[in-house]
């Protein structure tokens, strides 16, 4: 029997569904089993339903002036509980190390003094913000939300590709992908125990509330967006809705006497925590870019005075710097005295002359990246680049070696993806999200799986023709339901589940079938005298 998986090719990359012998991995059994039962038309119509639902929700991006739904693939990416345990541990560890690093960078700089990271590295980072040294983060948290990008190499090993502790985005897709999948493919979930992702907004809110300045009993939290034209505006509005807080733009806020207020119909209201989705350089025209219309004049000063919490903190970008990234395993050992759970991808630091010479020599087989880029900007994949592209980037590297790193081409793992009427392997990455509330780093079970839809494409960013997949972390059996302690207040009483007797429901007695039949009979046999009239049914 043929199915849509026929001719699924095994390649050099690690495949999430099949092992090297072409045997199905156990975590994919259920999903594979359900999908083989469907025809191409059936899958296509479900895919259409997914796309329609995204179009209706406005989960779209602008393509040549036309709104296109953000592509969500019909095949989920499945992760086993054991793998996930490691990932979550590794992400937590990474976040703790980056917190410690940031605290140190904007404080005593002990790591520099101890020779773990060079002084130069910090000072030359374009995202190092001197002003951040004057801000004491409430509760010691700077990375309230982090997104750690992972890839899986040819051996199936998860490795960290980059850290995002500035304003990581994409979590809205995790939440809406799951909702869309549950609605469109209820049967795929079948008997699988997929860990839910709906807790994210509550966790985030709890962390934001916990990060409020001291002495504020009932803090007001807002989400600060650059505005409706920002490409992540959908995410900003979704988070604000799910948190139940105000979504503000820079012009809705003002500062007075070192405090931040928002303009409302009921007058000014003080703001205590700002989950900001505006980059550092735009956030306060007094401190950073003077031409910024997106920011709030005086905001940084209010933060310095400890009257408002910015989440994530200012100056976090230095930890995202791809050159700093190369030092993170050392930082984990230095600050936490632990061995890294998740390895980095091997990286050449191009300011080191030997490394630079080697890399410039092997440009056509390596990947080079700008250290401060995000969203896949500026990345040149050697084997896929043209001569001209390589030459251009070569001269830029020579000009500014600090600005670049190089990595071997990692064959990102592949997963089955619905393309052109069949399931085909496409390259994936994974961005788990972590929320730090000051006492605990919680990792959302799942995260955003991005998939490069063109065949062989290794860059998965949505700006480069990427789509996404719902990410399923399977629950190992028999685990008890985890309780999210949101409030310890009285919960509505519940009862043991004996099937209760329902209260009867009324219907219009005229709708009783006998009556209708009788009226029809009357039409047909006018001469016949009427028979028994029906009594009314119980109302």
């Amino acid at each position, binding site marked *: 029997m043929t199915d849509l998986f026929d001719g699924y090719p095994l390649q050099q990359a690690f495949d999430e569904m099949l092992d090297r012998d072409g045997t199905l991995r156990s975590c994919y059994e259920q999903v594979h089993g359900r999908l083989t039962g469907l025809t191409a038309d059936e899958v296509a119509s479900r895919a259409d339903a997914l796309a329609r639902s995204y179009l209706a929700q406005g989960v779209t991006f602008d393509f040549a002036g036309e709104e296109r739904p953000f592509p969500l693939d019909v095949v989920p990416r499945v992760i086993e509980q054991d793998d996930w345990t490691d990932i979550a541990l590794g992400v937590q560890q990474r976040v703790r190390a980056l917190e410690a690093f940031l605290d140190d960078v904007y404080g005593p700089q002990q790591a520099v003094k101890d020779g773990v990271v060079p002084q130069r590295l910090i000072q030359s980072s374009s995202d190092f913000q001197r002003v951040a040294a004057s801000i004491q983060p409430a509760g010691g948290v700077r990375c309230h939300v982090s997104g750690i990008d992972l890839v899986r190499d040819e051996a199936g090993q998860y490795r960290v590709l980059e850290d995002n502790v500035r304003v990581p985005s994409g979590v809205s897709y995790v939440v809406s992908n799951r909702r869309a999948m549950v*609605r469109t493919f209820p049967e795929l979930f079948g008997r699988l125990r997929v860990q839910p992702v709906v807790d994210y907004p509550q966790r985030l809110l709890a962390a934001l*509330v916990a990060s409020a300045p001291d002495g504020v009993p009932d803090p007001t939290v807002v989400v600060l967006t650059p505005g409706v034209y920002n490409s992540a505006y959908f995410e900003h509005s979704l988070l604000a809705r799910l948190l139940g807080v105000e979504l503000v733009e820079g012009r809705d806020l003002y500062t007075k006497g070192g405090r931040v207020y928002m303009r409302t119909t009921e007058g000014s209201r003080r703001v205590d925590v700002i989950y900001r989705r505006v980059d550092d350089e735009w956030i306060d025209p007094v401190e950073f870019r003077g031409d910024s219309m997106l920011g709030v004049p005086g905001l940084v000063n209010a933060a310095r005075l400890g009257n408002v919490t910015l989440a994530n903190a200012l100056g976090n970008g230095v930890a995202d710097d791809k050159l700093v990234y190369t030092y993170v395993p050392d930082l984990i050992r230095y600050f936490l005295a632990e061995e890294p759970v998740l390895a980095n991808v091997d990286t050449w630091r191009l300011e080191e002359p030997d490394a630079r010479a080697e890399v410039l020599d092997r440009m056509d087989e390596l990947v080079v990246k700008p250290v401060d880029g995000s969203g896949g900007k500026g990345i040149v994949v050697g084997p896929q680049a043209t001569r001209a592209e390589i030459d251009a980037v070569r001269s830029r590297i020579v000009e500014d070696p600090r600005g670049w790193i190089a990595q071997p081409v990692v064959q990102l793992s592949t997963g089955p993806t619905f393309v052109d009427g069949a399931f085909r392997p496409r390259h994936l990455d994974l961005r788990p999200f972590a929320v730090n509330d000051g006492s605990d780093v919680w990792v959302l079970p799942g995260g955003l799986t991005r998939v490069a839809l063109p065949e062989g494409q290794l860059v998965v960013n949505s700006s480069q023709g990427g789509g996404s997949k719902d990410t399923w972390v399977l629950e190992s059996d028999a685990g008890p339901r985890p309780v999210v302690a949101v409030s310890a207040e*009285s919960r509505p*009483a*519940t009862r043991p589940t004996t099937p209760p007797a329902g209260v009867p*429901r009324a219907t219009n007695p005229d709708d009783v079938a006998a009556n209708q039949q009788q009226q029809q009979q009357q039409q047909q046999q006018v001469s016949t005298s*009427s028979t*028994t009239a029906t009594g009314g049914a119980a109302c």
Partner: protein
Amino acid sequence: MLSRIAESLFWIGRYVERADDTARILDVHVQMLSEDPWADEATACRSLLAIMDHPAGPGDREVNRDTVLRLLAHDRENPSSIAGSLLAARENARRAREIVSTDLWECLNTTRNTLPSHARRGPHEFFSWVRERAAVVAGLMESATPRDSTWHFMVLGQAIERADMTARLITTQARLGTGGPGWNTLLRSCGAYEAYLRTYRGRASDADAAGFLILDRLFPRSIVYALHAAERALRELEPVEGRHAVSDDARRALGIMRSELEFARLGDLLTDLPDTMERVQVACTRASGAIKHRYFPAVATTAWVEEAL
């Protein structure tokens, strides 16, 4: 207005609301069963069927989401299922065709005609369609019905059904506890989630969520709001009021229930939620009976059988 017509109008209001609310309840339910790895499908489905007055016998083999969908969504014979109530609404509109506006009639008729094709789609798509049709009906009623007794009877039916169904919805959660869909999901199914989050600024508890669905004075799907609306419609139908007491049994039943809810402490309501919700449903049934008795009295059924002649 003819009693028979009034009765049809009353039932159009009830049936359309019933289809709408049942679609909401089932949507939540199906989604919860798919999404929650800890869900106990058989227990949840049995409980739901019982609450919707459609109990599965203890001997029934497997009770799962398919059973629920068959009985509560697609059964055309039962005017308490979605399909059944949409068909019944259309039948009632046909009986009152000369009173019901043409737009409304065509809407209900089209709904019936296109029902089979939509019923074949996935559950969520079907439920969305049902909710959309109910919204169209509500919009047509709102904009094209004179505010005379035509309007009041339809609104009366709608409000009573809404109070009853919200109570049933809350019962599903109260009975299942942690095995249920969760209060947030319930709120979402009523379109109340975002309003609720804004009201409580996200820092909300389960108790607040239950309270919102039962007591909120401003949210149109809360029980108290619906009971108020039903009482208002009854007062419009019978504006003359004596100096003491309330002569209208329907108003009495609804008013007593509403006061009980409004004046109770939230904590007390929550300690025995299933019972309280059952009393709401009983009050609605009682009111419905009183309305029928007063406005649409059944003909004394004379049985003209051969022997009697």
